[in-house]
């Protein structure tokens, strides 16, 4: 039996927008196995980001159950969730992932610092991961000295450096041209294969969808289809 990483059942989340109530999640059940490469697709407003935030222990559902790496996310306090994110999760957002005043090496090392690794070790580790994402030689560059694609690669390196169980990426290619988007997704695929790290990526980018091994299609806060490819 496959090792289950995420188990979500009957997740609901509503937002009040003016007088109306928007059901961002309207009963989501999903199981993600360890080592999976999942793409959440669906129209804008279908609930991809909301679901990703649930998995990321950044937000809580109104009701439902959610366990991740065997732990009940909904029973955790805010501080416990922060600690959980630090040890189990990596994030790649759409853009502006990096801390402006830190260079590439320091950005990658930042999470390791939060984890309590000493300086020499975390810088060495950061350099290894930068090399792994094809950014050897860019260690000293600050975010404003790198292209959008390079910044996203640094974010991937940072997410991986923490040795997480799961990397969550929300529209990681949305701000990139198609070439950069393709190579970023190829990088993620490769790391998924080589490191065995689980990826859940929200995107409506066809390139990303084409790379999915599990394609989850969402509509109106519900899961419409789960295709194993």
């Amino acid at each position: 039996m496959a090792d289950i990483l995420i188990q979500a059942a009957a997740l609901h989340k509503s937002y009040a927008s003016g007088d109306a109530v928007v059901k961002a999640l309207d009963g989501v059940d999903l199981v993600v196995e360890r080592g999976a490469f999942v793409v959440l697709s669906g129209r804008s407003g279908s609930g991809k980001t909301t679901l990703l935030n649930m998995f990321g222990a950044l937000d809580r559902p109104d009701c439902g159950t959610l366990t991740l790496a065997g732990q009940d996310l909904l029973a955790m306090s805010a501080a416990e969730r922060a600690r959980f994110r630090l040890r189990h999760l990596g994030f790649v957002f759409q853009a502006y992932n990096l801390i402006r005043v830190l260079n590439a090496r320091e950005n990658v090392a930042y999470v390791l610092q939060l984890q309590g690794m000493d300086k020499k070790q975390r810088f060495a580790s950061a350099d290894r991961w930068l090399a792994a994402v094809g950014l050897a030689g860019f260690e000293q560059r600050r975010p404003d000295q790198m292209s959008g694609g390079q910044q996203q690669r640094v974010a991937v390196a940072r997410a991986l450096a923490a040795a997480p169980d799961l990397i969550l990426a929300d529209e990681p290619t949305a701000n990139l041209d198609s070439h950069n988007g393709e190579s970023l997704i190829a990088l993620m695929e490769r790391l998924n294969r080589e490191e065995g790290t689980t990826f859940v990526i929200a995107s409506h980018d066809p390139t990303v969808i084409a790379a999915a091994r599990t394609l989850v299609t969402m509509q109106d806060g519900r899961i419409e289809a789960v295709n194993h490819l």
Partner: protein
Amino acid sequence: MFALAWRNIVRNARRSLITVSAVALGLISLIFLWGFNDGVHNTMMRNLQQVIVGSIQIHADGFFHHPKLVHTVPDVNRVAGLLKSAGVAHYSGRLRTFALAAGEDSSEGLILLGIDPLVERQVTRMDSKVDQGRFLRDNQEAACVLGRTTARNLGVVPGDEVVLLSEDRYGSLAAERVRLVGVINSGEMGIDRGLAIVPLGFMQQMTGMQGRYSEIVVQLQPARLEAVASQLKQGLDQSYEVLRWYDMYPMMKQWVELENAFYYIFLSIVLLIVAAGIMNTVLMSMLERIHEFGVMMALGCGRMQLAGMVVIESVLLGVAGIAIGVMVGMLLVHYFHGVGIDLSDQMDSITRFYLNPVVRTEIDTDHLLNTVLAVLMAALLAAVWPAIRASRLEPVEAIRHV
């Protein structure tokens, strides 16, 4: 965390510089004002003590309020021994009584103060206040020094004779004819009017009070005043009174304390401005980084760590301002201590007694420390609101923020 806070400050160098300069400028003006204030106050208090009053006087109990010729210090040797063990090398024994002085035209009631010119020189500087004639020289000479107003009232000038009338130890009349050798023009009414200074030996002879003293006067550094006073009080019984200068003349100390209190009010206003300036900067730089804070929270940075970073940024701004402010402020105080600020045009004769026409700035350590601490507190205070805001951010909303 510290490095990150530092980078954030350096990143917006212009804004940080303006804030640091504002803090420094506030502190410089506070330090300079303290320097002027303390320079004036300390000079006044020093002058009061050094010209005639001394730092501590020892009398027979009750003498200060009811001075009587025969009410003298019970045992001078005992006092001298105590002073010696307290490390006080010089003291002046004086005799004091009421007298009537008669000159060419008229007479006037005054206080007759007997001092030993050679001994007195080691304790006070009353000799320096003589501006016509000379001060007393010889402990036995039949001479006197009068204040300017008294001399004018009596119609005498140096070289003239003055007749002094007082009681002797038996209560009968003692009269002596003395030569006026000098006139004091101090600007202080209590000295310029109603005081005749005569040699101690001469006065003891005149009143039959050989070997007796009304007051023992010592001069001390301000830092030693309290210790010596309490040592004396412990060593002497109820038949003595040990009075510090401000026990005898409380007005000046009260005035200094009142003025200092006003300075502290002024200080708190400046601090409020400083705190508002720092808070503005820290809050602005925090609001600019909401998205970044959201990302940091997603990565696992805790709320307290974020708040801590904001506090560190604020304190760094404060400390940088303090470093510059203290350096420049103390340089200014040091410079104007050497050069002095000439206020002779602004001074009338009364202030001239207590104040030197050239004010030399100096700063009391506790005033400097309190001010620096207060600025540091202001920087901390300025961080409170931005830090609370940072710690209350919800990661999802912060990340969405652009």
